[in-house]
């Protein structure tokens, strides 16, 4: 039969963006170790509703580690202790009976807390809107095999494109820098032949939006890579730095944006 456990949760409760938040402590019982972390929070929610209290609000949707919606810092680590795992894919067998778990929202200036564990990540969308695309109107495309792409290139682009836009990298970075997120998209599109024509303006535009949104600068600390559920690599940041340098230099002689 499945093993169950009893846990003490220190959860960040905050009514809305205006009010100040604080940690509340709760107990949850008979949590199956086969449950996911979010299912454990469901149990807490049901308990609270039972008592007529408001359940803990948190973002989640697919619950299979791909939509990037779930976002919580578990014992100080975004998405919790397991490497390359989202909170929704984190299973309770990685915790022990009687453990105390601290749960917080993403902490970063550009991600204001809206309620409990729910934050506003729209800055990430705006970074994409400023250049994270390849301009190709519907129906204007050439045959998919017209431009061969080296397998290595396609694989590299896929590695970068695997980013789910969860923002854990920002939460983990001591500077709240969005470099890993931004560099993943830039590396994905800049490396594909289809993305080359817009390469320079994309790079400059996305970086300037990133700065405008109030994210910090990267000091190559590397925590982002460690917590990234899709293991996006620091190589992407190096490529962004490289592409940015080229773009700026070109820009001096012939404006690219």
């Amino acid at each position, binding site marked *: 039969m499945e093993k169950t456990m009893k846990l003490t949760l220190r959860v960040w409760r905050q009514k809305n963006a205006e009010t100040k938040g604080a940690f509340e402590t709760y107990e949850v019982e008979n949590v199956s170790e086969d449950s996911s972390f979010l299912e454990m929070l469901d149990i807490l929610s049901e308990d609270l509703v039972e008592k007529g209290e408001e359940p803990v609000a948190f973002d989640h949707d697919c619950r299979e580690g791909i939509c990037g919606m779930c976002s919580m810092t578990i014992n100080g680590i975004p998405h919790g202790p397991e490497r390359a795992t989202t909170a929704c894919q984190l299973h309770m067998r990685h915790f022990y009976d009687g453990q105390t778990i601290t749960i917080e929202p993403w902490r970063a200036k550009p991600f204001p807390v809206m309620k409990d564990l729910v934050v506003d990540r729209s800055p990430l969308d705006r970074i994409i*809107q400023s250049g994270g695309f390849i301009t190709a109107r519907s129906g204007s495309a050439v045959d998919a095999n017209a431009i061969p792409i080296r397998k290595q290139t396609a694989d590299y682009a896929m590695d970068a494109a695997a980013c789910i836009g969860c923002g854990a990298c920002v939460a983990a970075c001591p500077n709240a820098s969005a470099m890993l997120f931004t560099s993943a998209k830039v590396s994905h599109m800049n490396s594909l032949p289809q993305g080359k024509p817009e390469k320079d303006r994309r790079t400059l535009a996305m970086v300037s939006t990133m700065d405008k949104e109030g994210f910090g600068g990267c000091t190559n600390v590397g925590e982002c890579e460690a917590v990234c559920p899709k293991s996006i690599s620091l190589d992407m940041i190096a490529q962004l730095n490289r592409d940015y340098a080229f773009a700026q230099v070109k820009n001096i002689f012939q404006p690219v944006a």
Partner: protein
Amino acid sequence: MNLDPKIPEGPLSEKWSNHKFKMKLVNPANRRKYHVIVVGSGLAGGAAAASLAEQGYNVSCFCYQDSPRRAHSIAAQGGINAAKNYQNDGDSIQRLFYDTVKGGDYRAREANVYRLAEVSSDIIDQCVANGVPFAREYGGLLANRSFGGAQVSRTFYARGQTGQQLLLGAYSALSRQIGLGKVKMYNRHEMLDVVKVDGHAKGIIVRSMVTGEISRHAGDCVVLATGGYGNVFFLSTNAQGCNVTAAYRAYRRGAGFANPCYTQIHPTCIPVHGDKQSKLTLMSESLRNDGRIWAPKDPAVAAKIRSGEIKPDDVAEEARDYYLERKYPSFGNLAPRDISSRAAKEACDEGRGVATTGLGVFLDFRDAIKRDGKKAIEERYGNLFDMYQCITGDNPYETPMMIFPAVHYTMGGLWVDYNLESTIPGLFVGGEANFSDHGANRLGASALMQGLSDGYFVLPYTVGNYLGEQGVASAGNVNAYHPAFDEVEDEVKARIDQLMSIKGDESPRSFHKRLGNIIWEYCGMARSKEGLEGAIKQVQEIREEFWNNLRVVGTTEGINPELERAGRVADFIEFGELMCRDALMREESCGGHFRVEHQTDDGEALRDDENFTFAGVWEYNGENVEPKLHKEPLIYENVKLATRSYK
């Protein structure tokens, strides 16, 4: 209710091009005078919103997640079909068309399916142009795999994240338009109703999931692309937020709902572990290319495995029943989803099921690893194996995976004609939300195809055509101050207040679970007359209880997940009843719909083409009044109906 499918004249292969030629065009300068409302940012909604904005229309796009990029299309793993014939294995539009009609058990509309096959290859071109990193061969050309029982390799894929990459492609196109100001994006907004003015859909009422504010949005037409209703089963592979609300509210406003009972049960999902489970996880079907599905021949052996007395590997070859290979020699483990799922259920019903719950069968890679080596298998399925281990804690390289069918896709949906226009003029429906081109069963890798076909290549034309027909004079002539909006908005607010004011003591989730159990039990893989009749009663009782004993904590202002769930569950309950009615009405077995009364001697689905070659479309008739059934006869001019055999 007018069910004219508006199928264009001419031979099948020329219908779409003729139709496009005959369409009314809106001159580019006038397009900016129109405002299109798109609900949904998935493959269908996202692609449509982006394409319409590219054409010059002003678009408002809505989604309930915090970003359009998170629509549930993101979860699709396996791949997307297209009749490119890059593998030179005899694929063609004709064949994709035929396979899809046959796969749908001859319950889909020929003309739509053909168009789907026709534009399928443009979709791949479009996605590649948008930067979708499809898998490639060393030569630099696109790679393909055979998928979901197809005999040609026509499936394009991006690792195990095809849906994610396709959606991100559409999302980036959409983002570009948002940046350019052509699309106004409304994240964290839930659509709660449709507003009609003189019979035409002219707007929607939405609730901000952040402030709780109810707001109205007027446009020249409305496009719904709100996905499937699989969550009516509570447990499914859908995302937590997937709902029927948008579609069901439209149904209540007069849009016909077609074939609600057509639901797809996917054979390869991870078995349920306990009653606290919130969702089921799909393991990509591609696993069936190398994995062999079996259950112990002898229930006693199965019992021993369940209790952990013996390990799966201890079971001798001759004691194993590779039932798919036995029953369907030519397709074996690749038999279509509905068939594989039912076979698994039978095995478990005979007490031969494994997993703690007895609801599971084995998907075994032992022989594949022996044959191709661990390395090769790892390359093919590494990420899926990891995912399985992450969830179950078992290592599939050492012990066979356990799988069980789970609700995965809903073929039913709002009825639409050839232009994807519902029975409400000006209300278009795309993607999984419409009753789609998949008939009674969907083939693997064809929903992504349909979503993008609708979004990139169909809606942008047919919506323009509708606007053109309305004439420039009509552009923007309805604004949100129109009395029709007051009326609907008041109803929406009243409903929310009612939910809040019950103050009973059962949570929305608890009601949802109870509903799900009933639907799964009686309207799931096997359905029967008395079962369904009983289910309808039980659902009505739940509904009664719901409105008397629901507890919604919190307030209407601000973020309130309980209130959101309550609203969705309320609609699921009413909709569940409609599903059962539809299943009860359809006195035959076809595709995902299996009526135990209608099966061959060896337990195969038995269609009744005489009486049921039609789409069953339901018309809402008011609270507690039986809905009215209408029929769109399905005319097959190009394929002749045959019993679907995969033996």
